[in-house]
């Protein structure tokens, strides 16, 4: 039995269905990330777990106990908000201690708990300040302190890093990961940033329009996206989704891809094509799986080379991204930084077909 279980959860606002039957679970000590574009229902889902919003149907269980009817304060959860939601009229110490104060915890005990948390988050020197006197990163720490001091069964994070600048965001991300590893508490974390999702999660749930698109480990989500939406949403630059056709030539399964100029590409799929039927498909390949021949993955069993017309070259320091045109769409490929390519030139590219995935153009679902 999982620690946090969500079963058939539905949420309606009047006529609008915000959550359309979500089923998820996460083990004790797990890190569940809910990710999706804005308006996908991920924050609503988090709020229903917190008890801040009621559910229309379905059940939420924490540690085997149904919590649907419990007030947020009785669910043994703590939440870190996007805006941090620090009480502006209270000092940092009062903010952290407020929940204990409401529960009637005696003052000495409160002070001790606050001191411990302040120590852990290195905010001791801020305890007497008001939230308005803190920087964004400091507010973030205080908000986490307020959650930590409760020692809850489940931590809920609602886009906690989205108000920080890029550098601080990376630091705090690491910090959250470290806290999770040392405390071993269950975390549910909402973000629209797929890099945050990949780096933090033990399980990722991708949502769109209130429907769960895929639920799995970061590697599963990244390598075997359930559908074209997940493939496109997770990863940066996004996976290339190229209209193509499967054809049989004798025992060989070949992938035909139109090019803007010159011959269509014809790639021998080998093992990767064994289960595919002839006909139209969408060929999904991540930029890093298409390289210059010298940069190709030597451990891969199935690398094929083909000439492609390079249209744009974007050096990015550690890598060089190049744009070519495949199947009538722009495709981004990742070359080594010192690969010698220039716009207008036809270059040999190496396709790592071990990493290729194929989708049905109609249903948009993954085929193999």
């Amino acid at each position: 039995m999982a620690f946090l279980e969500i079963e058939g959860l539905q949420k309606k606002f009047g006529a609008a269905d915000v959550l359309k039957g979500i089923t998820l679970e996460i083990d004790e000590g797990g890190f569940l990330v809910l990710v999706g574009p804005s308006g996908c229902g991920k924050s609503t889902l988090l709020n229903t777990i917190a008890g801040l919003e009621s559910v229309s149907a379905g059940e939420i269980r924490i540690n085997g106990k149904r919590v649907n009817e419990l007030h947020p304060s009785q669910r043994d959860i703590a939440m870190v908000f996007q805006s941090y939601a620090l009480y502006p009229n209270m000092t940092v110490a009062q903010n952290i201690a407020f929940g204990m104060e409401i529960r009637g915890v005696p003052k000495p005990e409160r002070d001790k708990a606050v001191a411990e948390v302040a120590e852990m988050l290195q905010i001791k020197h801020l305890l007497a300040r008001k939230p308005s006197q803190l920087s964004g990163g400091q507010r973030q720490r205080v908000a986490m302190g307020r959650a930590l001091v409760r020692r809850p069964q489940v931590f809920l994070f609602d886009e906690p890093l989205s108000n920080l600048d890029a550098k601080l965001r990376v630091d705090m991300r690491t910090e959250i990961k470290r806290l999770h590893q040392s405390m071993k508490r269950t975390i549910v974390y909402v973000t629209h940033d797929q890099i945050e999702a990949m780096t933090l999660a033990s399980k990722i749930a991708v949502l769109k329009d209130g429907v769960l698109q895929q639920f799995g480990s970061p590697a599963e989500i990244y390598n075997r996206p359930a559908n074209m939406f997940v493939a496109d949403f997770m990863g940066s630059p996004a996976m290339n989704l190229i209209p193509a056709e499967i054809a049989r030539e004798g025992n060989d399964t070949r992938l035909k891809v139109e090019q803007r100029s010159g011959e269509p590409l014809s790639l021998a799929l080998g093992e990767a094509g064994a289960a595919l039927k002839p006909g139209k498909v969408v060929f999904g390949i991540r930029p890093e799986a298409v390289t210059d021949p010298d940069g190709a993955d030597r451990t891969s069993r199935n690398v094929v080379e083909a000439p492609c017309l390079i249209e744009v070259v974007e050096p990015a320091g550690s890598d060089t991204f190049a744009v070519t045109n495949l199947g009538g769409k722009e495709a981004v490929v990742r070359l080594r930084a010192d690969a010698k390519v220039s716009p207008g030139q036809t270059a040999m590219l190496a396709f790592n077909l071990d990493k290729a995935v194929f989708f049905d153009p109609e249903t948009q679902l993954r085929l193999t």
Partner: protein
Amino acid sequence: MADVTVIVPRRASERRLAIQELIPKLVLAPSFALILLFVYGFILFTIVLSFSGSKLLPDFSTWVGFGNYQRLFAHPNWITALKNLAIFASLYIVICSALGLGLAILLDQKIRGEGALRPIYLYPMALSFIVTGVAWKWFLDPGIGLEHVMHQWGWESFSFRWIKEGKYAIYTIVIAAVWQSSGFVMAMFLAGLRGVDNEVIKAAQIDGASTFTIYRRIIIPLMRPVFLSAFVVLAHLAIKSYDLVVAMTDGGPGTATWTPALFMQKFTFGRNEMGMGASSAIIMMIMIFSIIIPYLYSELRMGRRA
């Protein structure tokens, strides 16, 4: 918006949750009940009354249909009141808006001492209409006021006795009312001007527009919402105008400065024509609501869209 379908409590925790969802409504209920009774219930009461033959006291045994309304619109005093309202409201709104906008534009020219001038323009709004009325009543009084002062200063032929003349008395009320409210309209426009995007102005200057053109073609058209708000506030004040008239002229000379509000008061409580008084109040409400309801509706809808 939280869903509030209150489920039949099954467990203690669920019951507690239901109670907690009830508390906010219990807190709001007394206020809402008071408003329902004192505003909407009373309006209903007055509507019913306006169809009754009530005289000194409410009388629900004789019904006259639209009789009160027919008598109302046949009554010369009511016609005078409506004419006065038309004169008063249109002058009051136009002058206040023009003066308010003009002063706001002048004040917006990086004026030294703006901090001192603004409160001077605005303080009349803090006064009671009765105080305003007393001040202007005696200042415009020919015996001791302006006319007297001019005579003292040697302008013997100066004559200003509007407040005593039936034909002109209503204009003295306009003067006092404008004095009281124009500073407020100025403040509304000033806030509007300060809200104009600076980059738009800069763009126009780069396009070579003169200050005058910038105001005429860009800034003043941007003040549309302020004009609308000012219109609604002023129209609503004009229709309600009562205190100022009472303090300055008490409707006189004769019935020359009666307004609908004054009519209602005099007929209901002075002449024991409660039915007619009620019907005049209904007409006033219809006038105000026909301005306010579309305005509030569009404001609330815009608020929701934003």
